[in-house]
């Protein structure tokens, strides 16, 4: 898996060439994932209701995240290093203004210009040193310090990223704190490898704000599932050391439960769950 990470294949301005950029505008799965991430990021951004704000989109790419912002009635300015991605964004006629630039060199914006900032799957690129004079730590610091200054006081920045190692998370949060931000990491679906999503939720000054909590996949199901439900069954399979007989109803229910905890889409349990199909003639 590690070698499949796009950061390893080349610098972002070269990796996101025309072909790769076109993928981003046509692949419905990518669009779906990006849109969901953006919606969650904007939710975490906690912008004032019913007000149109100016938001910075760091690593806007083809403007998928920007479209979500437009739908919610906000104005946005996007910054990206790949001109091909920005061309795609231009073709898609996104509402926001686009700027070509390298976030590792800092934000080219005036102080206090934005009400908030989002970034979807871009920050991990800063952890790579693509040129010999690149220093990830310095680039991160430059990014965070200039981001801090271009945000209005009390504004939030929500940055979703895919860290490769726990070290990267440390490095990123350390530099963010050094730049003056408060806040921290919000992790959605921490039990799952695939559905786990990291959001760095940063506050630029203002009064102390409470960090939002991550989703666990159990919202809305609360009270439906009870811990005691498996108690009797567990007795029956005691000889299996707590494990249920494979393909049995309890085994299936446990597996469904496990998947639900990982945040995957699982059909609700019913009396038909794990029932055998009728034998054909």
């Amino acid at each position, binding site marked *: 898996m590690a070698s499949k990470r796009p950061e390893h294949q080349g610098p972002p301005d070269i990796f996101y060439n025309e072909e790769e950029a076109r993928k981003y505008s046509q692949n419905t799965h990518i669009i779906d994932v990006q849109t969901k991430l953006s919606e969650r990021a904007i939710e975490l951004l906690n912008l004032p209701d019913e*007000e*149109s*704000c*100016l938001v910075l989109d760091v690593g806007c790419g083809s403007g998928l995240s920007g479209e979500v912002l437009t739908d919610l*009635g906000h*104005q946005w*300015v996007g910054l990206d*290093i790949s*001109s091909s991605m*920005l*061309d795609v964004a*231009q073709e898609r006629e996104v*509402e926001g*203004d*686009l*700027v*070509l*630039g*390298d976030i590792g*060199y800092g934000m*080219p*914006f*005036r102080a*206090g*210009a*934005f009400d908030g900032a989002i970034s979807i799957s871009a920050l991990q690129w800063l952890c790579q040193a693509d*040129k010999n*004079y690149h220093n990830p730590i310095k680039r991160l610091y430059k990014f965070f310090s200039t981001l801090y200054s*271009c945000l*209005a006081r009390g504004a939030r920045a929500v940055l979703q990223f895919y860290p490769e190692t726990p070290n990267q998370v440390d490095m990123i949060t350390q530099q963010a704190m050094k730049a003056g931000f408060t806040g921290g990491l919000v992790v959605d679906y921490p039990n799952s490898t695939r559905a786990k999503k990291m959001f760095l939720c940063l506050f630029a000054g203002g009064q102390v704000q409470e960090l939002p909590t991550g989703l666990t996949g159990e919202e809305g199901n609360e009270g439906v599932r009870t811990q005691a439900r498996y108690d009797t069954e567990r007795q029956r399979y005691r000889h299996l050391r707590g494990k249920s007989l494979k393909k049995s109803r309890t085994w299936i229910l446990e597996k469904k439960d496990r998947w639900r905890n990982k945040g995957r889409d699982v059909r609700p349990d019913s009396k038909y769950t794990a029932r055998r199909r009728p034998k054909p003639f």
Partner: protein
Amino acid sequence: MLTSNILKGVTKGFPLKIKAVKVENVSVDYNRDFVARILQRIEYGALQSAVKDLGLNESLPETMSDAMQQDDEFLKLMHKVLLEYEIEEGELICPETGRKFPISKGIPNMLLQETEVS
């Protein structure tokens, strides 16, 4: 146009001088609240010089007062100037260093060379 008011040069260069080759006029839905909100953030002097740089046929008042920020006429004008003018091709010039940032297809290129980074 809105972006030009918040973009700055490498270190301090602001406002960037605009040299436009092609300006397009797009229509954007008028949102009074947004314009009123964003006006508090706008550097009015920079906007005036930007309008002068572009040679736009808009007459902006000399100064902006608080009362004008509630005036619908003025807000509509601001909306037109800020959101509806789009520079398709041209250049942004840093007033301090003279560094030129080209604009192509409406996207300003703010990429820097290694030597320009402090």
